[in-house]
C-alpha cells in the first residue's frame, strides 16, 4: 500500500482524467442522454464526494470511472490508461487489479464466510492459498473484523457487512476505490464507522476514493464535493 503513497508523491498527473464524456442510453427508438460532456480530473490521493438528485447520473458516472460501463463519447483514462478503449475481457482484468468497489447493499456472497468473501478478488491472482488467506486476514484486520472472519453475511450487522465489503475492495491493493452510497443503508453510527474507515484508507493508505452519497454529512468526510444535476457537473472541486 506504500506504493500508492509513493505514487502520490512521484506523480502529479491526475489519476482519473475525464474529457468531454457523454453517455446515451437507447431504449428502442428513444435516446436518453444521461451524462453531457463531462470534464473532470481526480488527483491521486483525493477523496471525492459525488452528490446530486436521484436520476442525475451519479451511478452512471461512477460505473464508468470504475470500468463497469463504457462512455458513448469522450475519453476516460485512469492512471494513464484509456479504459474507454478497452474490450470487455481487458476491462475485467483491469478492474481486478486497479479498482475496488463498495455498493449500497454490500453485495457480499451470502453463502461464503467473511474471510472467503474477502479472498474472492485474490482468486484471480497468482497468489497461493496460504497467501490469499493471509492477505484477506490483513484486510479484515484493517476494517476491525478479524473476530468475524468465519461469519456468514447473514450473521453480521449492516455496518459489519459493509466493512467486509470494504475489506474485499482493498484486499488486492487497488489505487482507486469507487463507492456507491456506501452508507445509504446504514444507521448514523455504522455510517460514521464506515466513513471514518474510508477516510483512514484515504489518508493513511493513499487510496483515491470516489464516493456517491445523498448525505451532506457523509460528504463532509471527503476532501472535495462534486454536484451532478441532470447529467452536468454544476460545481467543481469545492474545497471543504
Amino acid at each position, binding site marked *: 500500500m506504500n506504493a500508492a503513497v509513493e505514487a502520490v508523491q512521484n506523480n502529479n498527473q491526475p489519476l482519473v482524467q475525464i474529457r468531454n464524456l457523454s453517455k446515451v442510453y437507447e431504449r428502442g427508438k428513444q435516446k436518453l442522454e444521461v451524462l453531457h460532456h463531462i470534464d473532470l480530473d481526480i488527483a491521486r490521493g483525493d477523496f471525492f464526494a459525488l452528490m446530486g438528485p436521484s436520476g442525475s447520473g451519479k*451511478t*452512471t458516472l461512477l*460505473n464508468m470511472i*470504475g470500468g*463497469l*460501463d463504457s462512455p458513448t463519447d469522450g475519453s476516460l483514462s485512469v492512471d494513464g490508461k484509456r479504459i474507454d478503449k478497452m474490450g*470487455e*475481457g481487458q476491462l*475485467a*482484468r483491469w*478492474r*481486478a*487489479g486497479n479498482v475496488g*468497489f463498495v*455498493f449500497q447493499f454490500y*453485495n457480499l*456472497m*451470502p*453463502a*461464503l464466510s467473511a474471510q*472467503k468473501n474477502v479472498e*474472492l*478478488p485474490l*482468486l*484471480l491472482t497468482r497468489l497461493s*492459498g496460504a497467501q490469499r488467506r493471509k492477505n484477506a486476514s490483513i484486510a479484515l484486520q484493517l476494517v476491525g473484523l478479524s473476530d468475524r472472519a468465519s461469519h456468514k453475511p447473514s450473521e453480521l450487522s449492516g455496518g459489519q457487512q459493509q466493512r467486509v465489503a470494504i475489506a*474485499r475492495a482493498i484486499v488486492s491493493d487497488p489505487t482507486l476505490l469507487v463507492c456507491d452510497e456506501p452508507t445509504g443503508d446504514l444507521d448514523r453510527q455504522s455510517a460514521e464507522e464506515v466513513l471514518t474507515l474510508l477516510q483512514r484508507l484515504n489518508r493513511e493508505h493513499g487510496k483515491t476514493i470516489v464516493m456517491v452519497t445523498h448525505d451532506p454529512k457523509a460528504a463532509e468526510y471527503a476532501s472535495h464535493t462534486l454536484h451532478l444535476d441532470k447529467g452536468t457537473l454544476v460545481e467543481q472541486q469545492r474545497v471543504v
Partner: protein
Amino acid sequence: MKYFHLIWAALMRRKTRTIFTMLSVLAAFLLFGLLNSVRVAFTSGSKSVAGVDRLVVTSRYSIIQGLPQSLQAQIANIPGVKLVDHANWFGGIYQDPKNFVLSFSVGPHYLDLFPEIELPDAQRKAFDADRTGAVVGEALAERYHWKIGDKIPLQSTIFPQKNGDKTWPFEIVGIFKEGKNGANGLDQVFFFHWKYFDEANAFNGHDVGWYVLRLDDPKQADRVAHAVDALSANSDHETRTQTESAFNASFAKQIGDIGLIVGAIMAAVFFTLILLTGNTMAQAVRERIPELAVLKTLGFTGRGVLALVLGESVLLLLIGGVIGMALAAVVAPGVSKGSGGMVQLPPVGAGNWLQGIIVMLVIGVLVGLLPAMRAMRLRIVDALAGR
C-alpha cells in the same frame, strides 16, 4: 481447483432444492446402472461369430420351428466341428405356474458341450443310465430344496404326454455347479433326456429345437457357421448359425424387443431429468444474477462465470449420478439373488461406468449451458441495478 468452493457454495445455497435435484439424478442413474447393461446386451447382438468356440444352430425363421435330427450327422461331418448335440425347449413349471423352471431336453452329449457345467463323474454316469433322470443347477436345487434322489414332477406349459397328462415325472440324479465363465443363470437350468421327451410327448414330430456345436478352433467360427447354414440352404428348414449371446438376444425378442423397451424407458427418464435439472439450473442462476454481477465486477471474465455455472451443473450431475450408479452396483447382485434368479441383472461393469459418466457430463453441460450463457452475457450495470 481453487474455484471449487465457489461452485460448492452455489450448490449449497439452496440445500433442499439441490438435494431433491440430486435425488432425482441419483434415481435416474440408479436405473441407468441397473438397466444399461441389459439394454446393451439385448441391442448389440452382433452378427459376427468370430472368436467364439461355440455356436448355436436354429431355424432361420423362428426358434419355435424345429430342425430335423438328420442334420446332426451332417454338421458333425463338417471339418472343424469337434462336437455337436441338440436340445429342445420344455417350458416347465414346478407345482405353481409362477414357479417357472428353465428346462431343456437334451441329447446324450449336450452337457459335454459346456465344460463350465461342473457335474461329478458319478452323477454324470447316473444321468446317462436313467431314462427319467435329470440334472439341475445348484441354485435351482437350492431354491426348491431338491436333493439327489428326489422325484420331481414338472408340468410342461407346451407338451402333454401321450396319455394327455401334462405332468412329467423326473428323478434328480445330479446337481451341477456353474464353473468359471458360466453364462448368467446357467445354475438355474434343468436338463433331462431328449429321448424320454421324444418318446413320451404327444405331438412333437421328432424334430429337435436347436443344435449347439463346439469348434476345434475359434478362428474357424465364420467358416463353420457358413458351412452349417449351407447344408440346409433352399430347404424348408433353413438354419441360422450364431453365437450364444446373439441367440439369447433373439430368443428374448420372442417376448418383446427388450433392448428397445429398456432404451425407451431410459430415454424417457433422462428426458425428464434434463427438464428437471435444467429448470433447477435456470432458477439457480436467475436468483443469483446480482451475485454473478458482483463476481464480474471483481474481475471475473464472462468465460469465467460461464465455467463456474457449467461446473455447478456438471457437479450436480456427477454427485447424484455417481452415487446412483454406485448404488446400482451394490443393489444389482441383490436383485438377482433376491428374485431367485428370475431376474438376472448383469453387474455394473467398467464400460457402464464410462458410459454413465459420459452421460452425466453431457447432461451437465446441456442443462448448464443456457443459464451459463446468460451469466456470461450479463451486463454488470443492469444486473447491479436490478434491471
